[in-house]
């Protein structure tokens, strides 16, 4: 074997080591979503967040392996891929025999799909039926996310619009907007939590039970994002991932500053949750541009996202009940990030055939027409993502609502999903008085558990 061959082989292997590291970081984001959502929930809905993340992650994995990966990455036509189903050894995917490298990339794709799915549930906390998670996770992992991923990254519709590809480096639209649109569809059919709006329709705060958990979630997500954006280079050449990671950090920092400043100027206090939302918004905003913009543009993108998220959360709260701000932090910041590519994309970094950003058309010598064209293509990606994801999601949630039901009964919502959906409390000692643990009761007093009448699990107060 020649030296050149060996070097090429080792380079490919090194690349996959980086993707593997990145993949693990993105999987870690599941813990980030878990803590963020649990922190923003009340104590009585803490345990359900754990079960949801685990079950969703698991179902999404199987759905992606069986169907989703094939639709997303399996070549095929402009709408969906047609190979790679039930991924296995000796299989041909998009005309190539699978290798360990293919498996690694397939796993990395799953990590993105699972992040997108986790975003969906932010709007649904504290009132959704557990069964809805199960059904939607199958549809999302097998069809919804793969269709969008195929359109942009799998050689589909959006990879060539009049010669210009949509530039979405790591998925402001593909991952984050997709999740947020699913979240919107669920929310529209689900309605607000009990007590969220008063008789006059004015919103009231339902404070989450742990800002430290929210903070932990935000920081884990932030760290995971280095795998999310940095790994999307898929290679280590020229250490380009370093540029991407620095952009990611600059935007996240600016997001925190933007959101904290905006909320301070509005209410003379730095709201803890809003500072967290600002970090997420900055990160979502830079997800699409991360590999296409210069360092100076990253803080601008993050700052705008951070300010945007504060006003969006306040405006959205007046109409619909989004307990974690997913529609703002992932949806609107995702749209902003996708469009920001069309504004700031550097001629040095753009994809083949793409137009550089508007900035370089106005202040540089790049073609302004081509820049507007690219901005239009980016806008088209937003519209496409919204239309496809909303249509399939609303149909799925409507089906769930008409069959197994989407929302728990009021009594179960009041009691909390931990005890009503899972039969146990996330924080038992907050709900069960110490004497009820029945330690040290004399035999004569303690009734054997078997003969004790079994009370109903919850409030339906039967006799």
């Amino acid at each position, binding site marked *: 074997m020649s030296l050149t061959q060996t070097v090429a082989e080792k380079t490919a292997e090194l690349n996959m080591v980086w993707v593997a590291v990145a993949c693990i970081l993105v999987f870690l984001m599941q813990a980030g979503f878990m803590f963020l959502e649990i922190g923003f929930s009340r104590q009585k809905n803490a345990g359900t967040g754990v079960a949801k993340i685990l079950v969703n992650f698991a179902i999404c994995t199987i759905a992606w392996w069986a169907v989703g990966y094939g639709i997303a990455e399996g070549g095929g036509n402009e709408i969906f891929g047609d190979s790679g189903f039930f991924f296995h050894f000796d299989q041909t995917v998009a005309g190539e025999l699978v290798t360990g490298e293919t498996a690694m990339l397939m796993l990395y794709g799953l990590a993105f799909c699972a992040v997108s799915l986790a975003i969906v549930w932010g709007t649904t906390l504290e009132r959704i039926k557990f069964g809805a998670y199960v059904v939607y996770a199958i549809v999302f992992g097998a069809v919804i996310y793969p269709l969008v991923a195929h359109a942009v990254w799998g050689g589909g519709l959006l990879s060539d619009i009049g010669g210009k590809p949509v530039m979405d480096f790591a998925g402001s639209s593909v991952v984050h907007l997709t999740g947020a649109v699913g979240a919107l569809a669920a929310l529209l059919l689900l309605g607000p939590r009990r007590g969220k709006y008063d008789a006059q329709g004015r919103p009231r705060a339902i404070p989450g039970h742990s800002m430290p958990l929210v903070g932990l979630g935000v920081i884990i997500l932030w760290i995971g994002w280095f795998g999310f954006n940095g790994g999307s280079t898929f290679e280590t050449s020229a250490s380009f991932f370093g540029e991407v990671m620095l952009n990611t950090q600059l935007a996240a920092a600016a997001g925190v500053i933007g959101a904290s400043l905006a909320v301070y100027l509005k209410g003379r206090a730095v709201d803890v949750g809003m500072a967290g939302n600002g970090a997420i918004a900055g990160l979502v905003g830079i997800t699409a541009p991360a590999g296409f913009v210069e360092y100076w543009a990253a803080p601008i993108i993050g700052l705008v996202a951070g300010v945007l998220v504060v006003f969006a959360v306040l405006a959205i709260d007046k109409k619909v009940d989004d307990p974690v701000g997913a529609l703002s932090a992932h949806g609107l910041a995702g749209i902003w990030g996708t469009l920001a590519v069309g504004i700031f994309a550097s001629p040095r970094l753009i994809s083949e055939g793409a137009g550089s950003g508007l900035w370089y058309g106005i202040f540089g010598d790049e073609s302004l027409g081509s820049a507007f064209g690219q901005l239009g293509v980016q806008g088209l990606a937003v519209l496409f993502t919204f239309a496809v994801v909303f249509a399939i999601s609303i149909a799925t949630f409507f089906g769930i609502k008409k069959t197994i039901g989407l929302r728990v009964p009021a009594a179960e919502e*009041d009691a909390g999903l931990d*005890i009503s959906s*899972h*039969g*146990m*409390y996330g924080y*038992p000692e907050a*709900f*069960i*008085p110490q004497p*009820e*643990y029945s330690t040290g009761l004399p035999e004569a007093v303690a009734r054997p*558990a078997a003969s*004790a*009448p*079994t*009370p*109903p*699990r*919850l*409030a339906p*107060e039967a*006799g």
Partner: protein
Amino acid sequence: MKKIEAFIRHEAFEPIRAELLDRGFPSLSILEAKGSGRQKGIVEHYRGSTLTVNVRPKLKLEVVVEDEDCQVVVEAILRHARTGEIGDGKIFVLPVEEAIRIRTGESGHEVLQLHDGAEASA
């Protein structure tokens, strides 16, 4: 003077509070209580075994008023706390010997609920 102690469902409190405020009785206390009655308890499941919790969370509402106001308060509680299902709770009415406002040291009916010059705030 009478003290009204009512064990009620959590969700009944807000309408009761609003009505009592409207009728000029802003002073009240609530305590988170755990108790048992005819309503059965809750079974908690934990890693395959179960724990029967025999007491349920309720809210204890305490209001002290003049004798003649007692009926108004009791009626407000009955109106909002009754669902007709087991577990609506109970009301107890107790005699009170004395009431003293700590800030001024005044005692008697002056201390109870709204009086001239007092501020009502929602």
